[in-house]
């Protein structure tokens, strides 16, 4: 899924100077967990029928990701290899329980709207994936930055979906009416099929942009070859 040229470019960049800014930015754009790696799709589709829900879910996941990545990185030399996945899951489940009770205390409406999906953060592949692929091999600081980048990337993706679905499906953004009374809401966008369609449309858009970029990268060479001929 990654653009070949930019991936190669970033690898060169990583080898020359493994700076922390790059670790942070990777998750937001280049390796966006939702649009590029296609991880954690269940909450992405399920809770994005409004912007508020999407934001709350994003922040909750960011918190769990940050805490678990930090703790896993801290304990990376103490956890035996054979039981590492089980240990990660217990760490993640602990933080999810914390988030679950905090959201319940802050806003019961939000808690009811998100339903079981707060507790299902435990099985979000992004979190376990980052613990296994990054936090268990890197220092605490890097793991924290990685978690922040991935979490913000995830939140942005959720907002992309939530924004489109709320604007089209309800005619509102964050509950504020946008189009006046005559707007006929596309209620299918709020319903489950809308989630699939909007995410599919975003992926189409990114594929199209990537293809155009590749074409542009190719075209100067072509022109050069033509002029030589």
């Amino acid at each position, binding site marked *: 899924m990654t653009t070949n040229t930019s991936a190669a470019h970033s690898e060169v960049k990583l080898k020359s100077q493994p700076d922390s800014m790059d670790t942070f930015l990777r998750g937001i754009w280049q390796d966006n967990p939702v649009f590029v790696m296609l991880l954690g*799709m269940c909450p992405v589709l399920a809770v994005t029928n409004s912007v508020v829900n999407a934001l709350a879910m994003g922040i909750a996941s960011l918190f769990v990701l940050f805490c678990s990545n930090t703790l896993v990185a801290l304990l990376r030399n103490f956890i035996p290899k054979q039981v590492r996945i089980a240990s990660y899951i217990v760490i993640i489940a602990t933080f999810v329980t914390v988030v679950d009770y905090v959201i319940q205390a802050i806003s019961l409406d939000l808690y009811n709207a998100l339903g079981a999906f707060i*507790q299902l953060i435990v099985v979000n592949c992004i979190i376990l994936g980052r613990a296994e692929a990054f936090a268990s091999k890197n220092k605490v600081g890097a793991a924290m930055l990685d978690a922040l980048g991935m979490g913000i990337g995830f939140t942005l993706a959720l907002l992309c979906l939530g924004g489109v679905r709320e604007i089209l499906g309800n005619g509102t953004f964050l509950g504020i009416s946008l189009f006046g009374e005559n707007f006929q809401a596309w209620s299918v966008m709020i319903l489950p099929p809308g989630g699939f369609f909007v995410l599919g449309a975003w992926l189409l858009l990114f594929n199209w942009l990537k293809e155009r970029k590749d074409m542009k990268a190719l075209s100067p060479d072509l022109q050069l070859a033509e002029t030589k001929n």
Partner: protein
Amino acid sequence: MATDSMMFVFLNACIINNFVLSSFLGICPFLGVSGKLSTAWNMGLATTFVMFVSSLCAYGINLLLIEFQLEFLRLICYIAVIASAVQLVEMTLKKFSPVLFRALGIFLPLITTNCAILGLALFQTFREYNFLQSVAYSLGAGAGFTLALILMAGLRERLQLSDVPNVSQGAAMSLMLAGLLSLSFMGFAGLGN
């Protein structure tokens, strides 16, 4: 049909509120393992089996937790139970049916992080299903998951032969298809009310 009858619970989980297409649970295997009809079928069977076992275990664990007033440990206990149930299923299959074990291969351990399983355990707790209802619910959810996986795999096998634009290949196309499937399953909404 009474809403708490076993048949209704089964149909509700299987068709009306299909786990994959209406509740968005288990999307990762739905997109990942639906390339071929045979693997989709095997994956569906394995998931159904794990759902059944972990639903029974979750029911028992929940009774224990309520008895000792330890409900805040529910999530941690459930995920531990599911992980061990998957391990158990793996070992049992290896011993009694090596053929099936080889056919399922890598999919078995991956079931642990399938959110449909944990979702099932959580939903049956929230809805306070009794023992028989839990059994019906887990079987219905498994059947619904298998159904969605098979439908998707059939569509994608046909799609491989057709000519689609470059841009829409891969995940984007699968998501659009899933949207259409989900739209058709919306037709069952309101059934039984």
